[in-house]
């Protein structure tokens, strides 16, 4: 077997992070949000409403252990233990299967709240491009959902679809976006965004002599027009932001912006943590309301 066949091009970076500006959590209120998605899981820990630590990893075969792995990884090196967290919100596809969560909230509400923190209160339209679904969300200045639309009937326009393409073309997933933008002339989008059919179509295009760049451009473009129709059905209003894994793919983001004629706000955080971040913010509000807002380490 050659190296090419064994290499997993779809594999995105799994990592954990700790805020160097917060030296200690003791004496503060610690809350958490855990987003167990279909494809990736994140745990976010906040200290007095400040982002303190998070982890971002692939979801395993069962939700409860993915949730536990995610929170343990986020707590790594912080000295925190589960009992120090005063309130945890579970969200995502596996939201009811987060064993240590105090409450489950949908990822629709959590993403809107998380985006409000990440991008500021001017966000009105949010596009969450997740692993296996895609959501167009409207929210107010507090990040409160006012309407939403969701596509989870097929993998078109989702992270999983992009992973399949990265593997098919043997291009590391982090490079897909920039590579797709390197074409001199924008090709017509692949006619089907169905992952299975698009794969067949792409194979045909490669055989017809198309470069990888051109095929990727055609696929990113198809994905962009697909999600734009979802956004337009829900109604577009500025400011506009994107969360989820695909927000890191410049090839899709640029094309969405091009079709809409609106630029998306630039993220200062990992866009994959928006759901867990929203969950941790809700956890803070809920902790304060339920008198569970104990101070950690006392």
């Amino acid at each position, binding site marked *: 077997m050659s190296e090419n066949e064994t290499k997993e091009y779809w594999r995105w970076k799994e990592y954990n992070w700790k805020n160097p500006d917060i030296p200690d959590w003791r004496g503060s209120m610690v809350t958490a949000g855990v987003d167990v998605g279909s494809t990736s899981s994140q745990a976010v820990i906040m200290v007095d409403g400040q982002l303190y630590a998070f982890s971002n990893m692939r979801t395993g075969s069962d939700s409860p252990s993915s949730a536990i792995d995610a929170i343990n990884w986020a707590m790594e090196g912080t000295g925190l233990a589960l009992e120090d967290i005063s309130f945890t919100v579970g969200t995502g*596809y596996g939201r009811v299967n987060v064993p240590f969560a105090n409450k489950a*909230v*949908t*990822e*629709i*509400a959590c993403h809107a*709240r998380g985006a409000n923190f990440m991008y500021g209160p001017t966000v009105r339209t949010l596009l969450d491009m997740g692993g296996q679904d895609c959501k167009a969300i409207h929210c107010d200045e*507090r990040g*409160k*959902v*006012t*309407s*939403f639309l*969701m596509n*989870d*009937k097929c993998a078109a326009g989702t992270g999983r679809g992009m992973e399949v393409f990265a593997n098919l073309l043997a291009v590391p997933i982090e490079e897909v976006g920039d590579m797709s933008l390197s074409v001199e002339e924008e090709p017509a989008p692949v006619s089907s965004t169905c992952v299975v059919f698009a794969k067949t179509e792409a194979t045909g295009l490669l055989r017809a002599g198309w470069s990888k760049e051109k095929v990727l451009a055609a696929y990113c473009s198809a994905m962009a027009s697909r999600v734009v129709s979802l956004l337009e059905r829900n109604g577009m209003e500025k400011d506009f932001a994107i969360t989820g894994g695909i927000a890191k793919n410049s090839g899709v983001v640029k094309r969405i912006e091009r079709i809409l004629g609106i630029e998306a706000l630039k993220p200062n955080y990992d866009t994959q943590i928006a759901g867990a971040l929203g969950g941790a913010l*809700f956890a803070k*509000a*809920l902790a304060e*309301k339920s008198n569970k807002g104990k101070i950690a380490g006392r």
Partner: protein
Amino acid sequence: MFTQFKEWYEKRHDYAMEWKEKTGGKIIGYFCTYVPEEILYAADVLPVRVLGGHEPQDVTEPHIFGMYCPFSRDVLAQGLKNKFFYLDGITIAQSCLHIRQAYTSWDLHRPTEFSYYLPMPHNVQSDHSRTFLRSELQQFQEAVEKWTGKKITDVDLDRGIDIVNTNRRLLKQIFELRRQENPPLTGQEAMYLVLSSQMTDKREHNKALLELLEQLPQRKLNRPTGERLMILGSENDDIPFTEMVEQVCEATFVIDDHCTGTRYFWNESVKDEDRLLEIANRYVDRVPCPTKDWPQRKRLEHIQNLIKDYDVQGVIVIQQKFCDPHELDIPAIQKSLKERGIPTLFLEFDVTAPLGPFRIRVEAFLEMMRQEDLF
């Protein structure tokens, strides 16, 4: 309290066969609620509604277009799989082409001794609709008489009208209890009431409703009412979905606009010396299905009234996939609800409801109304 109604719904075929054995009467399957059951009761024929089985099937493919609504295909599957083998006749009144195709294919492949297509007028708002329908009802009556070998007299028609009207009146009285702050019945229980009324002898059903009506006002449900929801669309006998919304998501359906719900029984007929005209008037004036709701849209106003009367906080609009008439109505409905600030959630239904994906939508919808706690 609702066990009997639930059992009637779940064991509809057993009920029908027992009825037949007991009475020796004929049973007719009907495909649309525009069929005048009054005339069938007058002829001592039992009308039962043909609904789907909510199971994936593979028998209808050569007989009905794949992009006809899943309900119509499910209905046809019931026929092709002989689930309604006891039927002596089948009938439909014109509403939409999809269900008519199910009827026609059923008639072709599983012929019964009596089959009747009733051309219910589409333009019920026309000046001629009443006289048109009256003449059609006359022909329908004659065909039924020929089939049963028994003349239908005015006395028979009065009896038929009374049986059906009583059923409508009792159902409405029970539904009105749902206006209360804490309704004494859930949406799921209300569903069983209407669905079973379409599958049983209404004389028996009326007795059970009367008993229920005596007990219900004192009943307290040991559950929070939660958000007061309305559900609307074409037909809906998707029990698992209703159960999920009420039991898992903790909201309550307080009213509906479905032909397996209020649209079926909301209007009684108004007494007229000419019995057939009385029946014709009832079907012309009833809460319309979208196939009959033009040029003026009466349904929008009706839905708004229900929202007001039943203090509805949110509306779930469901559509059978590929249902053309409702596809036409839904944008207007959603627009009119939006203008009045009523949150709506749109869901597309198939033979089986994908409960996981529906759950997140319903939860997020309810969170939109509840989420103040989260901030």
